Structure formats: C-alpha cells, structure tokens
C-alpha cells in the first residue's frame, strides 16, 4: 500500500539496522568486553518461602579466582529499596533477599569471580541455612485474613485494590434484559526474549562515574539506578548504543543493575552479569500478568451490550515493581472497541510466593482484551446470535469519533467496521465457515475465532497517578536531536536503546521525509544517558508517535532555519520561497536557488550571511509531549490514558484432533489499522511477531509452579515457545485511519497482534468445543486441557 502523500513514509524501504545484524556485527551486552571485568553468578533460594538463618561463604571465598560474595544484609544497608509503582512503602525489595526468601529462585547471594564458570563453582559452595515458612501460592487465598503474609510489615497481601464505577452500572444491569457472568483465567507467561538480561558496569573513582552497558528497555532507568545506589543522577552513564536482543516489555533490569553497579563500585572492578536461562526464568523477575477475571455482562435481546462488571485479580508474585500498574493501563480501553455505557472495574493486585511480575507487551491489555472478547462471544452464544453481527452491532462507528469511554479516555479515530470487513474478506469467511463445517462433518472439531481489539498507543503514564495519588506524573515525553554537519550529512540522535523496533529506521525515515533527503544517508545514533535528552523509552507502543513526532519536530526546525537562511540571502520573503530536496528557490523565479551545500556552508561558517538571531551551526532538538497528556485523574478515577488507538480484527480457523485434543491453526488473517505506517515492513513484522507471541500465550506457554512453589517450567524444555512449525503464515490486511493527534497520522503498533491473538484463538477453540456444550476459559489451551474438557463433556470417542 503506497501512500502517495509521502515520499519515504509508508514505502517499502530497507531498514537501517538489519545489515549489522545479518553480518554478526550487532553489539549486544554480552559482546561488550571491558578490560579486567569480573563475572557474577547467583546463589538462588531453593525454597519458595523461608527464613535465612545463616550464609556461610568461607568455602567459596577460599577458592582461587573468587573475589567476593555479596549478601542481602550488606546490600540492604548500602542501597535504597527499589521503587514500587503503588503506594506500599513497606513492601521492600532489594536485588538480594534479606532475612527472608519469598520465592524459589530468588537471589540470595552474588559471587564475583574471574570467569562465569568459576563464579558458578563458588556459588555452589556458598552454604545457606534456611528455616522454611508457610508458602502462599493461590491468589484467591492471598485475600484471606489468615493467609500467610508475604510481606508481614505491609500487613496484607493486597498491593492495590479499588472498585471503580464509571457510569450508572447498577441501573444498567437492572434495566438490561439479560445478564451473564463467567470466570476466565490468563496464565502467567511472558515475552521471554531469546537474549536474557545482561549488564556490565564499571566504576571510575577518579571521575566518580558509573558506566553501565545493559540490555535495557526501561523508563527512567538511569535515574532509578542512581537513586537506589545513592548517587547523583549525573554519576550514572548508561550507554544506550547497546543492541537489545528482544524485550517486548520485560528488559527492566533495575535489580540486576543495582547489584552489579554496587559491586563494581565496592570492588573497584568492572563487573559483568549476564543471566543464564535458569537465573532468567526463575529469578529474572520477568513473568507477565497472572490474572483471574470475574466478568458480568448486561445486554439486551438484540445483542446491545449495556454494561460490564470486571473483577481482575492479578497475582504479581513476591515483589512489586511496576507490575500492579498493569491493571491500570487497561482502564484506558476498558470497553474495548465497543459502545458500552457503563463499567465497574475492580482491579486487585496480590502478593504470593512466586517470581515477581514485570511489564509484558501490552502492559495488561492483552489479558483484558481476552476477557472482553470472551464476554462478547458468550453473549452471542447465549443469544444464539452470529458473533460477527453482534460485534458489528456494538462496535463504535466511524462517525462517533472522537469517542469518550466511561472511564474517561477519548479514542482518537477508527473505522472498526471496515477493518473487520477487510479481515473477513482476507480470510474468505464464507469459505472458512464451509471449511469448519466440512471438518466437523468429517468428525473433527473445528472452530472459528474472531476478535476485535484495541491497541492503546503513545504510552503515557496516567496509570501512575491513577493507582498512586502520591505520584503526580503527568508528562511522559520523548525527544530527538537532529544535526546537519559541515559536509551536509544528517545525524539523528535518539535517547534510549532499541530492542528490535527499528528506531533508527523510524528517525531517518521521518527526518528524510521532512527534509526531503534520502533516509539511507541519514545516520541515527543513541546518546548515552548523560548526553541524552529526556526519554521514557520505547514502552507502551509509543515510539512511532513519540520519537517519530520528536524527530519530525526537530527536522522541521532545521528546515525552517534553512528557509530563513535562504530568505535572508535571496532577500525574499519566506512566503515566496519553496523548499525542495533540501534546496530553496524563489517560487516565481526557479533559477534563483540556494542549494543544500550553500545553505549548510552558511550555517556552519558564515555568520555574516546568517539572518540575525539565528544561532550558527545547524542542529535542533525537539521534546515532544504525549498528545492529550497532562491531566490528572478525577476523584472517581477517570483519566485520559493513551492518546492513539490502533485496532485489529483477527479471524482464525482452528482444527482439533478429537482423539488427542491437539489444536492446529489452519487459517489466520488479521485486519490492522495503526493509522499511517511509517515503515510497513516493520509494522508487519511486529504484527506477525505479536501474533506468534499470542499463539504462545494461547496454546503453549505457562510458568507453572509445583505445589511447594517450585517453578516447574524453568527451562526451554518446559516453557514452550512456538517455532516456525507451530506458527502458521498469517495474512495481514492494512487499513489506515490516520490519527488526528499526530504529525503524519501514525499510531502505535509495537503490541500489534499480541493484543488480539490470544482472544481470537481462545474464541476459536471455544467455537470448536461449543457443539459438545462445554467451554474452556483458561489459558494456555494445551492438548491436555482441551482433551480434559472434552472428557468432561463426554463427547470423546
């Protein structure tokens, strides 16, 4: 789909990043060698809940090549507790356990040695005496008054609980013709990048400066490291030019970095810690939402959905960082793409003796979408109505935008009906129905899943003040610096690291578009944190909007400056000039032209030819504030969450072997609207990847715990991520409803696919199970889970 409005935006163009990756020249954290660096391995708790009685490190310290064994006691005395997203000051968290371990795999001591292998040898020789404590694993039981307290000082296992009522919920429920209720469960899974988290830190005592190289995607990371290590912010320099081997939310690494930063400073040695896969899975604190939804829906006999009541109980594990806030973001899309009049929402975040939760792609929206779509399907089934017709009946219409939802957010734009139509056409829906029915007639189970879901984008942080009244954050800006050097070459400077989203391509495309210069010749670099302009990192599907707009803003200033120089030298009013390809000419007299090189020469060398007031050199910064941002929540918890709303419609056919319960995705199409696509290849790639990730969450992936709290799926042998053999090829159909809030009409797409795929697949499996009269409401829908459901339905052969 070429968009003729633009020269580079929306065109098929190669990315800037790929050539270094295909030649093995990416520079990931594990590739960075700091001379003299030492290596860390961790001693992990074998118990899910225990008191640490003693730690004996002598045998480890006696080994050749072993430099230090750090324990929680020392670290707790020397550092601040890590930040928590909600107001729970007594839920203290440090990189190493102190006095008590609260989950199996929690880090108890850190060993520093010459090599990683030696550090592991020494870690085995650290003896820890434990006295086991009661262990709490059930999030429902966590609410019981007599439950074991994961953090006794906090006085309860509840981190956050509030009942929001937006609109006349009770009245709507009373007035509606029908209601139904059900429970569904989203399992604990995560994005599990193929690169684990890693960090190397070096303390320079002469400069009093901590250099950090890390595999990071975390807002305000340098500030948090400095604060926790009791250093001034300008004593931490994070190098953002490190390639990050995938993140999709989870590469937060604060605890790792505090640990390594502390050791580097304490020992005067550069320290590297690269999680191995066991440390990553058990103690890397990157598990995603683990959520039980109790859903109630009020609706009319014609299928009109009136109101929702949602209780979402989220098990965040043993500690809280930003994880409770993952219940907050969905407030901004709590009715999905539907016209629903009123909503009651009760998010409850509880502690248990499990690995701590971290931000995962979508920040809580994918589970919520799964619950909402499950509700829509249930209503359709209950009314014996076609699921597509029911959706069409309830979807917000194109003419209703901007559309204010009950929880206070206004959706910017959309054309949901058209996108759904396109997806149905791409999937050849009548043929799909025929294929399903033929499979059923042949004795198979087959079902079609439909999901219509939103991707809130432009990551703002309004959930922070919403969930923590002491937090008055109302800005979540991002920035870009654009520079044209004396040779005329353009460099864009971004202020965070990248984990596969192609930001260098984004910045160069946008800057090239504005300046009409070939993006292939524009270089984009990542400033370190001491050189960086403000950024809140690539979270919340925000960079096309935020970094894209900042880059455009900076490029526009450059362009304006070039025009001003030309106007001054051509002695012509600005309005009489035209800018083309970097050259400026007089509209009426095209032969009077100042070319790019001449303008650059003046900007860099000839102040005597510069218009008064214009600074020499040619560079511009632009700090972009989130559109619609700036507001605090109302007393009843209404707030504008994110600015831009992308939409996706999934259509999927699943066939299930009735004898084994094994599902196969035989057809998959998605209609996708994220406004103007800056780089279609990148958007499509993220969408395909998001769907694959959603397939994992729907069918394969789960962090399962044993009865005594051991993580049962701690290796890639048991945590099952789909390969090319499981992920089908997927047809994407694009649609473009530009956002009125952004420079080019772009919206976000970093979570595309993932936000609807689990819902669509779950709906397909339930469509397949429907003839048996049973439903499966828990992810992942494994062969055994499907088979067991069929067993209870008594329909097995």
């Amino acid at each position: 789909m070429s968009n003729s409005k633009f020269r580079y935006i929306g065109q098929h163009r190669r990315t800037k990043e790929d050539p270094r990756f295909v030649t093995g020249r990416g520079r990931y954290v594990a590739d960075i060698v700091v001379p003299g660096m030492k290596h860390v391995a961790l001693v992990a708790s074998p118990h899910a809940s225990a008191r640490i009685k003693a730690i004996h490190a002598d045998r480890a310290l006696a080994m050749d090549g072993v430099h230090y064994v750090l324990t929680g006691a020392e670290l707790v005395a020397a550092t601040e507790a890590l930040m928590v997203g909600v107001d729970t000051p007594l839920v203290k968290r440090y990189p190493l356990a102190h006095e008590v371990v609260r989950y199996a795999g929690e880090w108890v001591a850190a060993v520093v040695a010459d090599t990683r292998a030696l550090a592991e040898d020494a870690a085995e020789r650290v003896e820890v005496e434990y006295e086991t404590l009661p262990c709490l694993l059930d999030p429902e039981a966590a609410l019981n008054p007599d439950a074991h307290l994961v953090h006794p000082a906090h006085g309860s296992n509840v981190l956050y609980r509030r009942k929001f009522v937006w609109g006349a919920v009770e009245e709507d429920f009373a007035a509606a013709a029908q209601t139904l209720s059900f429970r569904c469960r989203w399992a604990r899974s995560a994005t599990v990048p193929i690169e684990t988290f890693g960090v190397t830190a070096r303390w320079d005592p002469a400069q009093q400066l901590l250099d950090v190289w890390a595999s990071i995607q975390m807002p305000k990371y340098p500030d948090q490291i400095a604060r926790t290590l009791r250093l001034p912010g300008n004593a931490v320099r994070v190098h953002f030019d490190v390639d990050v081997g995938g993140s999709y939310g989870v590469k937060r690494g604060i605890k790792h970095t505090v640990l390594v930063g502390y050791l580097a400073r304490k020992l005067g040695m550069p320290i590297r810690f690269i999680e191995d896969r066991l440390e990553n899975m058990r103690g890397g604190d990157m598990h995603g939402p683990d959520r039980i939804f109790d859903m109630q829906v009020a609706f009319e006999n014609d299928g009109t959905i009136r109101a929702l009541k949602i209780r979402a109980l989220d098990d965040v594990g043993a500690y809280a960082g930003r994880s409770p806030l993952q219940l907050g973001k969905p407030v901004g899309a709590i009715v999905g793409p539907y016209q629903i009049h009123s909503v009651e929402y009760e998010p409850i975040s509880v502690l248990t003796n499990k690995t701590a939760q971290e931000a995962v792609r979508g920040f809580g929206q994918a589970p919520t979408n799964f619950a909402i779509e499950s509700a829509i399907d249930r209503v359709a089934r209950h009314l014996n109505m076609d699921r597509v017709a029911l959706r069409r009946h309830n979807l917000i219409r194109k003419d209703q935008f901007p559309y204010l939802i009950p929880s206070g957010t206004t959706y910017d734009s959309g054309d949901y009906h058209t996108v759904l139509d396109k997806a149905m056409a791409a999937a050849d829906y009548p043929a799909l129905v025929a294929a399903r029915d033929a499979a059923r007639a042949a004795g198979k189970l087959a079902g079609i899943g439909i999901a219509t879901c939103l991707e809130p984008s432009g990551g703002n942080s309004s959930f922070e003040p919403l969930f923590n009244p002491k937090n008055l954050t109302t800005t979540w800006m991002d920035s870009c610096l654009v520079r044209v050097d004396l040779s005329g070459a353009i460099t864009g400077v971004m202020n965070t690291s990248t984990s596969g989203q192609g930001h260098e391509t984004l910045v160069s495309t946008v800057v090239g578009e504005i300046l009409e210069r070939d993006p292939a010749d524009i270089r984009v670099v990542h400033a370190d944190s001491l050189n960086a302009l403000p950024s809140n990192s690539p979270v919340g599907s925000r960079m096309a909007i935020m970094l894209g707009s900042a880059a455009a803003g900076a490029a526009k200033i450059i362009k304006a400056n070039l025009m001003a120089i030309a106007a001054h030298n051509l002695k012509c009013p600005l309005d009489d000039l035209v800018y083309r390809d970097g050259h400026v000419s007089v509209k009426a007299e095209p032969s009077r032209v100042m070319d790019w090189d001449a303008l650059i020469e003046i900007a860099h060398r000839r102040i005597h030819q510069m218009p008064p007031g214009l600074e020499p050199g040619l560079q511009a910064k632009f700090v972009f504030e989130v559109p619609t941002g700036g507001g605090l929540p109302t007393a009843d918890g209404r707030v504008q969450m994110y600015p831009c709303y992308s939409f996706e419609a999934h259509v999927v056919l699943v066939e299930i072997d009735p004898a084994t319960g094994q599902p196969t995705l035989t057809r998959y199409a998605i209609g996708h609207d994220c406004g103007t696509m800056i780089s279609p290849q990148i958007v499509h790639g993220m969408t395909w990847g998001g769907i694959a990730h959603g397939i994992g969450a729907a069918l394969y992936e789960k962090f399962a715990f044993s009865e005594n709290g051991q993580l049962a799926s701690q290796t890639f042998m048991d945590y099952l991520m789909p390969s090319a053999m499981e992920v089908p090829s997927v047809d994407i159909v694009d649609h473009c409803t530009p956002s009125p809030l952004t420079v080019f009409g772009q919206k976000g797409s970093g979570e595309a696919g993932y936000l609807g795929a689990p819902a669509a697949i779950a709906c397909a499996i339930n469509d397949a199970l429907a003839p048996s009269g049973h439903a499966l409401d828990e992810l992942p829908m494994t062969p055994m889970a499907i088979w067991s459901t069929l067993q209870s339905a008594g329909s097995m052969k």
Partner: protein
Amino acid sequence: MSAEKLHVVTLMVNGQPRSAAVPARTSLVDFLRDTLGLTGTHVGCEHGICGACSVMLDGEPVRSCLMYAVQADACAITTVEGLSQPDGTPGVLQDAFCETHGMQCGYCTPGMLISAHALLQTNLNPTEADIRDAIGGNLCRCTGYVQIVAAVKLAAEKLRATGGAK
C-alpha cells in the same frame, strides 16, 4: 586464575586457522565468542533448544552450546561472520534477510542464517514446508517467522539464478 588444565584447540574458523588453549569445560559457543572474539554467534539458552548458537561444523549445522570446544578440535567451523562476502558486506542470503526484514532485534538471526544456509546448500528449491522444517529448531520471539521464510525463499531464487554462489 585457577589451575584448571588447559587444552589446545586448533580449528578452522571461516577459513582461517585459529588456535587457543581453554579448559575442557569451555563450550564451543563460549570458545567462539569469548576466546576468539567472534560474537556474531549468540547464546540464548545454553541447553540446546533455541538454536541461537547454531554454526556449521564440517559442513553441517549444529548447536555450539551442545558441544565442548575440545570436541571440535581440528574441525572446520563456519559462523555467521563467514556467510558474508570477503569484504564483510552481506552475502546473498544475508542480503535477502535485509530485503524482507527477516528479523527485528537480530538476536536469533545468526542462528537462523546458519540453518537457512545449511538448507540452501542441499536444496535450492525449498518449499515453504522445507524452510519451516529447516528453521524449526531456531526460536525467534520477534518476527513470527513470516519474513524469515520469505527471506529464505528469496535467497533460494537468487541463488538459483546465479548457480549457488554466495
């Protein structure tokens, strides 16, 4: 440093003779990355599932985390660096990955390239099923595989046209 016994490992890597002394427990991937400084090959799991560490060993793709460097003594290894043109620019397969954007973060990419390279050495006319089978032991969390499959198809096409030269 401790007194662990060192073994001299001598092998050909990307056509160059390389030699170094390492402890027996050094995995081949650690040897390539840490000892020889060839960091193109990546580590994802160290237990043989993700395929990020794939290299060619005597002409066949293997997982370099699943063997010790001493076991590879006197073998010929090709890593992702060895798939490039002599001047370091992308070879045909690598270029095809750029054309279709067959990656995002690039972390699985070296392993994917090795598996695809191995396939194309014996089959210049692979079906989609052949390609998926060949990369079935390489996990990618970014792409959903679609653009990777497209890249391998494209590379096969180009290689057919040029008679298989890299």
